[in-house]
Structures are given as structure tokens and as C-alpha cells.
């Protein structure tokens, strides 16, 4: 479904991704872990199409199409969703109007008929329950005055509304308390249907107690240095990242 090959990317003059390769099949959940500064968030930004990053080498194909050739909005319409590490507050834009526009664009792109107002509201009701998001929040301006937990729940709510085939979660667990972590994880798990794929970027293992991955990869200095199953995450939790660094430097 998503194939990343030898990806190199930089921001301004600083090279951050240095030959990253990763293949994600249909319905798979991949966790990407790594120390600070290893390039985790850069990978998320490059996949979503943030223009500050320049891809200097490598390819990314998404369902057979060249992902890097598409502007950010087209990637979203093709079914890629990025849950932001820092969701943006946009005063004056109501969550509902924004979502109505986004759902409309995506359905149009996929050749689906526009939802009626009633269908849309029904969908909002159904999906907001998934992350226990208060109906009031849906009516407010996008993320404005939301707590950290509410912002992340709102990301997952939007994800559920837009029904993507590939979800990239960038440090969704950061800034969450135990209850919010549980709610967000349950929302994500409810969306695992054997077809939808996930890339879960996280620094800590605790999120993976709730969302159990099929594969775990360790990112270090812009490359994947080790891949394994969920046991790898536990190993990292126990040993920290230092042993990996030593191992890499010994090479």
C-alpha cells in the first residue's frame, strides 16, 4: 500500500532523513520509535506533504501512485491522513464547517455523492462518540481553547470522519493523561478493520500497550536501524535507546 524507498529529506541545509526504506501492507500497523532528533516527525511531515521539507532522493509510492508528486490536499483525498503532533488552533473557523468542507472534497475526489445535512450530522454524532468528544466541541472553532487531550481526540475524530486508508499518527500520545490515552487508543483500535493501515510514531512504548502493532521499527539518524515485532518495543522500553546508539556506532 505504502512503499518508501531510500528516502532522503532535508530542511533548509540540514539533512534529516538519510536513506529510509519501509513497506507497509494493507491492514498493517507499524510503530516507528526512536530517540529525539532521529527524524520521526520529519517522516510524518514528508509523507503529509509539508513544503518546508525538501526530498533530495528516493521515492514514496502510495497505492501505486507517486505520493511525492502530489500536493498535500491530494494526498489527503487519496486516503492519507496525518494526525498532527501539535494540532493547530484556528480561531474563527468552526470545526463543523471545516469538516463539512473536508468531507465534501474527499467524497468528491472518490466519486461519492455529497452527504445531505442529515447524513453529515448523523456521521458526526456516530464518530464523535468513538472518541467521547463532547458535541459542544464539534461546534467550536477548530482546536481553539481545547485542552491537549481534546486536541488529540479531535484529531482522531477527524480521522474517523474522513475515513482514510492510511493513517499516520505523529506522537499522538504526547501530552495525554492515562484516560485520554485510553480513549484515543480505543478510537484508533475501533478503526482497525484489517484493511486500513497505520503508521504510529511514538517516543514511548506506553501507547503500544493500547494499540498493539504488527511491526516495530527503530529510527536512528534518519534510517531504520532495527525492525521487529511488538517485543522490540518492550526491549526498547527496558533498555532505553543508548544500547542501539552504541551498536550503531560500533559498526
Amino acid at each position: 500500500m505504502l512503499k518508501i524507498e531510500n528516502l532522503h529529506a532535508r530542511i533548509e541545509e540540514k539533512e534529516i532523513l538519510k536513506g529510509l526504506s519501509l513497506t507497509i501492507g494493507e491492514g498493517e500497523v507499524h510503530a516507528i520509535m526512536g530517540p529525539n532528533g532521529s527524524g520521526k516527525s520529519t517522516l510524518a511531515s514528508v509523507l503529509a506533504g509539508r513544503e518546508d521539507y525538501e526530498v533530495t532522493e528516493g521515492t514514496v509510492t502510495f497505492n501505486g501512485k507517486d505520493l511525492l508528486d502530489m500536493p498535500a490536499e491530494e494526498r489527503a483525498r487519496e486516503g492519507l491522513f496525518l494526525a498532527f503532533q501539535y494540532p493547530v488552533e484556528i480561531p474563527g473557523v468552526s470545526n463543523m464547517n471545516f469538516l463539512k468542507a473536508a468531507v465534501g472534497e474527499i467524497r468528491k475526489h472518490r466519486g461519492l455523492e455529497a452527504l445531505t445535512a442529515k447524513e453529515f450530522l448523523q456521521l458526526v454524532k456516530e464518530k464523535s462518540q468513538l472518541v467521547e468528544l463532547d458535541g459542544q466541541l464539534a461546534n467550536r472553532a477548530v482546536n481553539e481553547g481545547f485542552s491537549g487531550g481534546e486536541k488529540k481526540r479531535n484529531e482522531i475524530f477527524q480521522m474517523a470522519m474522513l475515513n482514510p486508508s492510511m493513517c499516520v499518527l505523529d506522537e499522538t500520545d504526547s501530552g495525554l493523561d492515562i484516560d485520554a490515552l485510553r480513549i484515543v487508543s480505543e478510537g484508533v483500535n475501533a478503526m482497525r478493520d484489517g484493511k486500513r493501515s497505520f503508521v504510529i510514531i511514538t517516543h514511548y512504548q506506553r501507547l503500544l500497550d493500547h494499540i498493539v502493532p504488527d511491526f516495530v521499527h527503530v529510527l536512528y539518524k534518519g534510517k531504520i536501524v532495527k525492525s521487529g515485532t511488538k517485543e522490540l518495543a518492550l526491549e526498547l522500553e527496558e533498555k532505553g535507546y543508548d544500547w542501539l546508539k552504541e551498536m550503531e556506532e560500533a559498526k
Partner: protein
Amino acid sequence: MSIVAELKPTSTFSFKPNKHSVADFAMPTTRAESWKYTRVGAIDSTWKQAERNESIVALENGIRIENGFIALPTGQTEGVTFTAGKNLSVEQQALVLSLLAKENRRDVFDAISENASNDLILIEIQSGKIIEEAISIEIENMLNDSMSAPYVFIVSKENSIAKFTIDFKGKTERSFHLVQLHAHVEQSAQLEIHQLQNTSKNECVLLRESISQAEKSVFKITTVTARGTWVRNELNIRIEGQHCETFLSGAYFPKHDQMIDNHTFVDHQVANCYSNELYKGVLFDNGKGVFNGKVYVHIDAQKTNAYQSNANIMMSDNASMFTKPELEIYADDVKCSHGSTTGQFNEEALFYLRARGLSEESAKRLLVSAFTSDVMNRISIPSWKEYVLQTLIQNEIITE
């Protein structure tokens, strides 16, 4: 001086309060402080004046001003009297002249108004009356290369409440609106004016509004300029009585080579009053904006609470914005603040919206409507707000 080839005297009411002749004044140049950023070139031209057209189609519940001639509403509104210039009583004539005398500005445009004015109307809101429906004023030029110069006078009598909408429409290839509006809000009265300027491609507007407020009165005004090749709005508000509230707001969206200038003046003459000013601009293409907000707090105007804000977003590298807050404070126990920002879009917000599938264009329009939403929320008439927003959508400024 070439403005107006032939000045015709007012046909309806002998109206030359200052006995000035246009030839007494020169056109302002950019050397004058208040015209520093606004060249009069576009309006310094030879304009025709329309003949009185008896077949103006009057509106049932509003006033229609066509080519500067005023048609009174055909219907009645309980609590409101509309008086055409030629029918003013001696007392009403004195009232009109007293309102004009409050404005001590004497310049070429006032002289042109005085000499070229086609028509005049006095609208009086009777004491204690609450007018539920907004009174609409529709302003339109129908004759190419013409100038219109109507006067509108509004007096809100004690304890009355009324709202007006003023709709500047565009019909001609090229014309000039020189509109004067003078209003007085009497003690404990409330007056609101909500205006939209959507004149056509080569229409110019010089709108001169002078408002005075007696004690405990409330005055609110919103001015949205959706289009206009050359628009200058001069809004002077004199606060003459204590415990008044004043809200003045505007939004402007110059595109292409359009120029939109808002000059406001809030004159706090007495103590214990509150004023709140909020103007926002989004500038496209080669658009140009000017904002000059003067707040004057007289030595006796203690406990004045005056707030002013002007914020702008530049959508193009070629657009320009000239903004100048001007606070003159002579009282020592006041709360006055002002802020002015001019910047680019929030790129992070733009990316967030695009990452959810919105095109760059619709994301931008959504952000423009978000940016100006606080001004739009001051439009207290829902149907008028909807009309303003629809106009902005049609002009491809905001999105649905």
C-alpha cells in the same frame, strides 16, 4: 481643478450653509497629512451630473438614492418620519444646518457637495420608538461618467432604537459617489448603521460620515468594502455626552488595483465614555489599503476607555497597507489602547487545512473568513450579515 464640469445648484432646497465656492479650495495633495497615502487622481476628473428622473422606482420600506436623487419609501414605518429636502420645515432646516455646523472641516469636497448636491433627506426616529425592522438605504449610480452628491441626515431622538443598512451598489462603467451622512444620537438613544460597499469596477466612493452622540447614547457602525476601485471612508464621531458607548468596525478587501482608505476619528470630548474600534483588511494582488485611526481624548474626558485595533493580512507581495493609529490623550485618568498588525497568513493553519483535503484556494478563503469573523459578528442584523457574506463569496474572497 476639473472636478464637475458644471455645478448645478440643489434643485430641492436652497442649501449653501458655508457659501463656499469650489474655486476657493485646491485639491488635496499627498503633502497633506490626511491624504498622504491616497492620491485623488482617480476622482479628479470631469464628471457629468444626472437630471432628476421622476421615474426612480421607490422602495416600499427603504430609501433609494439613484444618481444622487432620493426616493422616499412608499410605505409607512411607525415611529419614523422621512422628509425630503424641499419639504423641510423651518425647524428642520435649522436642525440640518446645526448638524452640518458640527463638522469644522472645510475643503474642496465639502464645497463640491454643497454646490453640486442633487438631493437631501432628513430621517427622524421619534422619541421612545423602537424600530424593529432595519431601515434600508440603497445607493446606486446609473449614468456613466457621472457624479452624485446626496446628503442624508439622521436624528435618533431620545430613547429611540433604530438600525440602518446602507447598500452601495455598482451599475456604471465609471462614476463617482460623493455621499455625506450626518447623524445625531440624542440622549439614551441607540443607532446602528451597517454598510456594504460593492461598487463596480471603476466606481469611486468618497463617503463622509459625521456622527454626534449625546449622553448615554449608543452608536454602532460596520463598514464592509467588498469592491471599489477608489474608496475613501471618513468617519468622524463626536462624543458630546457622558456614559456613551461607541463601536466602529470595518473590513476591506482590495483586489486588483483597488484602493480602500478608512479614516476614522473618535473625539472623546467628555468623561466616562467607552469606544471600541476594530478594522481588518485582507489585501490581494496590487491592492492598497489605508487605515488612519485618530482618537482624541480631551483634557476633561477623564475615565475614557478607548480601544482601537487594526489588523491586516497580505495575500500578495505586491499589495500594500499603510496603517497609522493616532492617539492624542490630554486627560490623565484614562484607559486607551491600540494595536496594529500587518502580516502574512498563518502557514501552519493553511497546511493543517490542506492536510485534511481542502484545496489551497478554499483553505485560504476559509482563513480569510475566520480572520474577519469578529468584524462580521458585529453585524447585528442576521439577514444583512448573510447578504454581506454572500457578496464576499461572489467576489471570491471567502468560501461558503
